[in-house]
C-alpha cells in the first residue's frame, strides 16, 4: 500500500478519535467550570441566608419567641433559595424547581436544630404521597441517661435541662453548670451575681442527682467550659450523632422517593463540625443538578456570630476607659483602668423604625393618611474597634479565650470577663424554659 493511502487511512481513524477526545475534554472543562460556579453560588447563597437570619433576628424585638423564630428561619430559606436560583439560572418564582435539588437545610441553634427538608403528604385524590419541603419540628441535643427515663438536653455552652424522677415525681430542672471557684465576679452586678448563685446551686444539685457517669460529674477536672473536658467531648458527640442520624434518614428517604437516585450524606470534616459546636450554624446541601459529565453534589457549613441566640464566650468584647473596645486577649485590656464587657451583637448596628413627627409632636401622615415611618440605624455605643485585636486579630498570647483567662489573664481582667459573661448569659432568653 502506498504512503498516501496509509496517510488517508491514518487520518480517517485519528480524526473521529481527536474529535471525541476534544469533545470529552471540553465537556470536562465545562463540568469543572460549573462545579466552581456552583461551589461559589452555594457559599454565597448560604452566606446570604445567614445574613438574612442575622438581620431579621437583631432587628426583631420578638425574635426570641419560638413562632417568630420559625418565621425568621423560613425567610432565611427563601433568601438561600433566591441566591441559589440566581446562580443556577433557575426560576426563583417556582420553589419546587430549586427545592428538588435541596435534600436538606439544617439550622444549628443553641440547644437543638431545625431542619428544612421534604415531608410526605398523602393526597386522597390521587391516592399517592406527595413530597413538600417544610420546616420540621425542633430537635433537641438530648440524650437518655438511664432506663428510668432521665433525659438531659445539652446546649452550645454549659446550660443544660434535665428531666426525670429525682425523688419527688417527674420534674424538669434547668441551669448552667460551673466550677464555682473559677467565677470571680463583680458582686455589684446583679445579673452576674444571680447567674453565679443560680449556677452554683444547680451544679451542686446536678452532681448529686445525675446517674453515675464520669462525664456528668462536674468538678475542676471536668470543667464544662473547657472544650477538652469529658462533659464537652461527650456533648459534642451527642450533637454530632443527633444531626447525622436525622439528616441521614431524611436524605435517604428523599433520594429514594423523589429523585430516584441513591444520594448519600456528605462526610462533614472535623472543621465543619467545629463550626456547628462553636456557634449558631447553617448546613446547606445542594445535590443532583446536572453539570455536564456528572451531577453536582455539594454542601456548605457556615457560622453566624451576630444574633440574639446566646452569649458566645469567645465573642465578648470589652470597652475600655478610652472608648475603644477589645477582645479580652488584647494587651490593652491588661492595663485598662475599666472594662465593660458585652456580647458581640451589642456592637453591631440596629435598625429602628420611627413614626415621623412634626415640631409639635404630632404624627406626620402621607396623602393617604398613613403615618410616615422613617428607618434609622443606630449603635448602642460610640466605642470604636481596637485596630490590633478586633481588626487584625493580633494577640501577644495566641491561645483560646478559655485558656487565656485561666492561664494568663490578671485578676482584674478575669473578673471583668466572668462578670460580663455571667451577665450576658443571665439576660439571654432560653427557649428551653418556654
Amino acid at each position: 500500500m502506498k504512503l498516501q493511502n496509509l496517510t488517508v487511512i491514518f487520518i480517517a481513524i485519528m480524526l473521529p478519535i481527536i474529535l471525541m477526545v476534544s469533545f470529552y475534554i471540553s465537556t470536562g472543562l465545562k463540568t469543572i467550570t460549573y462545579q466552581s460556579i456552583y461551589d461559589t453560588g452555594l457559599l454565597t447563597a448560604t452566606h446570604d441566608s445567614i445574613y438574612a437570619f442575622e438581620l431579621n433576628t437583631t432587628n426583631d424585638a420578638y425574635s426570641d419567641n419560638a413562632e417568630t423564630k420559625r418565621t425568621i428561619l423560613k425567610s432565611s430559606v427563601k433568601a438561600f433559595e433566591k441566591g441559589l436560583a440566581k446562580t443556577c439560572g433557575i426560576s426563583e418564582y417556582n420553589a419546587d424547581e430549586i427545592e428538588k435539588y435541596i435534600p436538606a437545610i439544617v439550622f444549628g441553634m443553641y440547644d437543638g436544630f431545625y431542619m428544612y427538608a421534604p415531608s410526605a403528604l398523602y393526597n386522597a385524590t390521587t391516592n399517592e404521597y406527595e413530597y413538600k419541603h417544610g420546616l420540621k419540628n425542633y430537635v433537641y441535643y438530648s440524650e437518655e441517661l438511664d432506663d428510668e427515663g432521665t433525659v438531659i438536653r445539652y446546649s452550645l455552652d454549659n446550660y443544660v435541662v434535665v428531666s426525670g424522677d429525682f425523688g419527688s415525681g417527674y420534674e424538669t430542672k434547668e441551669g448552667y453548670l460551673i466550677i464555682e471557684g473559677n467565677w470571680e465576679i463583680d458582686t455589684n452586678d446583679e445579673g452576674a451575681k444571680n447567674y453565679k448563685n443560680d449556677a452554683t446551686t444547680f451544679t451542686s444539685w446536678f452532681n448529686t442527682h445525675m446517674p453515675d457517669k464520669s462525664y456528668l460529674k462536674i468538678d475542676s477536672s471536668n470543667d464544662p467550659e473547657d472544650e477538652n473536658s469529658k462533659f464537652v467531648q461527650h456533648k459534642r458527640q451527642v450533637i454530632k450523632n443527633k444531626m447525622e442520624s436525622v439528616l441521614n434518614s431524611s436524605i435517604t428517604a428523599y433520594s429514594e422517593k423523589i429523585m430516584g437516585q441513591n444520594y448519600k450524606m456528605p462526610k462533614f470534616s472535623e472543621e465543619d463540625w467545629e463550626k456547628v459546636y462553636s456557634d449558631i450554624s447553617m448546613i446547606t446541601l445542594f445535590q443532583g443538578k446536572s453539570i455536564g459529565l456528572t451531577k453536582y453534589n455539594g454542601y456548605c457549613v457556615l457560622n453566624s456570630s451576630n444574633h440574639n441566640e446566646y452569649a458566645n464566650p469567645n465573642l465578648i468584647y470589652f470597652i475600655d476607659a478610652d472608648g475603644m473596645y477589645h477582645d479580652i486577649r488584647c494587651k490593652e485590656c491588661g492595663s485598662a483602668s475599666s472594662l465593660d464587657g458585652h456580647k458581640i451583637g451589642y456592637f453591631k448596628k440596629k435598625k429602628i423604625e420611627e413614626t415621623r413627627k412634626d415640631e409639635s409632636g404630632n404624627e406626620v401622615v402621607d396623602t393617604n393618611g398613613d403615618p410616615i415611618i422613617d428607618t434609622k440605624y443606630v449603635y448602642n455605643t460610640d466605642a470604636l474597634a481596637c485596630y490590633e485585636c478586633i481588626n487584625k486579630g493580633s494577640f501577644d498570647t495566641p491561645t483560646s479565650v478559655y485558656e487565656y483567662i485561666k492561664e494568663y489573664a490578671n485578676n482584674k481582667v478575669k473578673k471583668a470577663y466572668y462578670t460580663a459573661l455571667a451577665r450576658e448569659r443571665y439576660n439571654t432568653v432560653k427557649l428551653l424554659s418556654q
Partner: protein
Amino acid sequence: MGDSLITIIAIFLAAILMFVFPLVAISEMNDNEAQAMVQSYTTEFVDGIRSKGKITRQDYDGYVQKLSATGNSYDVEFEIEIADVNPGKKTQNQQIGDTTYYGEYTTQVVNALDSGDYKLKEGDYVGVYVKNNNTTISQMLKSVLYSITGDQSYVISAQASGSVVATGY
C-alpha cells in the same frame, strides 16, 4: 490521476489535522482563559457593590475596562432587586428574604450612574450578568467547521449575585 487525488486528499486532511485543530484548540483555550478572568472580575465587582451598598461610576468604568482588556467586547446587564420593606405601609416586620422585592435593571442603573452613585440598602439583591457580543476566533473557526451561526451565540459569559450587606446612603 488516482495517486494525485489521494495525495491532495491526504494533504488536505493533514492540513486540517495539523493546523485547523490546533488553532481551534488554542482559540478555545483563549476563550476559557477569558471566561475565567471575566468571572473573576464580575465576582469582584459584585462583592464590592454588596459590601459598599452602592454602584459607583468609578467602579463600573473600572470593571468595564478590565473586561475590555480580555480582547473582547461585552454586554453587561444589571438586575437589582430592591427589598420593599414596607410595601403596604401598615405591614410591619417584613423579613429579609421573604419580603416584597421590586426590580430595577440595566437602563435604570446606567442612567443613575450618569448623575452619581446608584445606592442600595442592606437586604437588597444585586446581580450582574455579562456575555460577549463580538465573535471570537474560536467562534469563527467553529462556525466554519460546524456551520454554527446566529447572533445569540456567545462563548464567554459570567454572572455573580448576592445580597447587599451594607446600606450605601
